[in-house]
């Protein structure tokens, strides 16, 4: 027998503060691990291209000759694969997510500075 079996729940709801987040008046809920968006630090990059080669969605293009790093954020699925694979700390994920756009934004473009000469090993390692 069950009429109005939900009565208790809805009555409780009615007389208690709703759990609704006040976003955007209040900041969004985030966790440390939250994969918001990808951040590239050109200074740390060794142009190994592993991020490009292993990107599941091919959002990243790295040009070894021109030393450029490009990312199309309308392709990036923020899976963090590149971050995991990056041999240096050039890539990391921030919990804040990207905001909406009215049009396709230009790709994020970085020129990678030439580092002081160091032994280069990252690219080959990751490709193996």
């Amino acid at each position: 027998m069950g009429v109005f079996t939900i009565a208790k729940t809805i009555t409780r709801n009615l007389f208690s503060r709703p759990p609704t987040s006040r976003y955007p008046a209040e900041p969004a809920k985030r966790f440390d691990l939250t994969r918001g968006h990808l951040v590239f630090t050109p200074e740390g990059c060794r142009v190994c291209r592993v991020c490009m080669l292993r990107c599941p969605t091919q959002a990243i293009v790295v040009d070894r000759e021109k030393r450029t790093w490009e990312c199309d954020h309308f392709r990036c699925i923020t899976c963090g694969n590149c971050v995991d694979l990056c041999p240096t700390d050039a890539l990391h994920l921030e919990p804040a997510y990207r905001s909406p756009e009215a049009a396709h934004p230009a790709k994020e473009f970085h020129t990678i500075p030439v580092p002081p000469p160091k032994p280069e090993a990252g690219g080959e390692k990751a490709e193996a």
Partner: protein
Amino acid sequence: MSRQIVIPFGPQHPVLPEPLHLDLVMEDERVVDVIPSIGYVHRGLEKLVEKRDYKDFVFIAERICGICSFIHGMTYCHAVEGVMDLDVPPRAVYLRTVWSELSRLHSHLLWLGLLADSMGFESLFMQAWRLREHVLDDLESTTGNRVIQGACKVGGVRHDVSDQKLREIVDGLGQLEAGMQDLTNVFVHDDSVKHRLSDLGVLTEQQAWDLGAAGPVLRASGVANDIRQTGYAAYDELEFTPVVETAGDCYARTVVRAKELFTSVDLIRQAVDRIPEGPIDMKVTGNPKGEFYARSEQPRGEVVHYVKANGTKNLVRFRVRTPTFTNLPPLLAAMKGIELADVPVVVLSIDPCIGCAER
């Protein structure tokens, strides 16, 4: 003089969250024929294996479906690990189990909500989804994302979860259980819900089995078939009994899923109790060669991932047989003679995931 009403139902329809399309032939509101059609979500992602590294493909496998996401990723890993004969560290296996069950919780709560919505029970929908948010928080705080977790990789998992966090999750689920109890109480005992679900879309045990039904649909018809019993992941070390109902109607399917919520909570508890210390991943070298069928129990039923590899980093063939796909023929059988108002309910009763089904 035919008095048949022929109308299109879907692909865009407020009670179908996903594009499925049915041509309904009715007399008054009695459905005399249903002609289904899919293909609105067909992307052809199975073929992407030819272009992606098998290790990266896990991210795509996860995106077969955003609801069953984790288990797709995990099953894909199982398949590849099966081909390569990798022994994944036990902690990773347990973590995968915990996440699987959390996925099941979120998926079942989601489904209960959608079912309530399909019969116009809005507050019940809200309540179910409100509870689901707790599970999503657990998932996000441990994996980094709410619905597509991206936590699995070939050879292990990507993030460790501290024992303290696992405890917190279990404690949180303890509190959630009370809410789920109230929620499922409505589904199981409310007369208006029973009016909508009982004796509707009945599949007998024989029918369900012969038509290839899977998961809760099969179990609601009295077949104790739960792929978790095959002991993949950590399930061989955990104790549980598959939830079985015998009526085979929509109500039975609802009850099965409602009860499975508690099974899942229990499994998470057991897993957290027994989780061993140790590494969470292993180094995977070389490329797979061979083939493997991996099966898992998704919230919607049995999923089969088949992988065939030839020793390159690209797989030759990756095939997914999702539970919704195999539940389509039983759905058609269940839809004979129902009323228009029952259409969304019966369709939802197999917990369709069109994204899964069409890939």
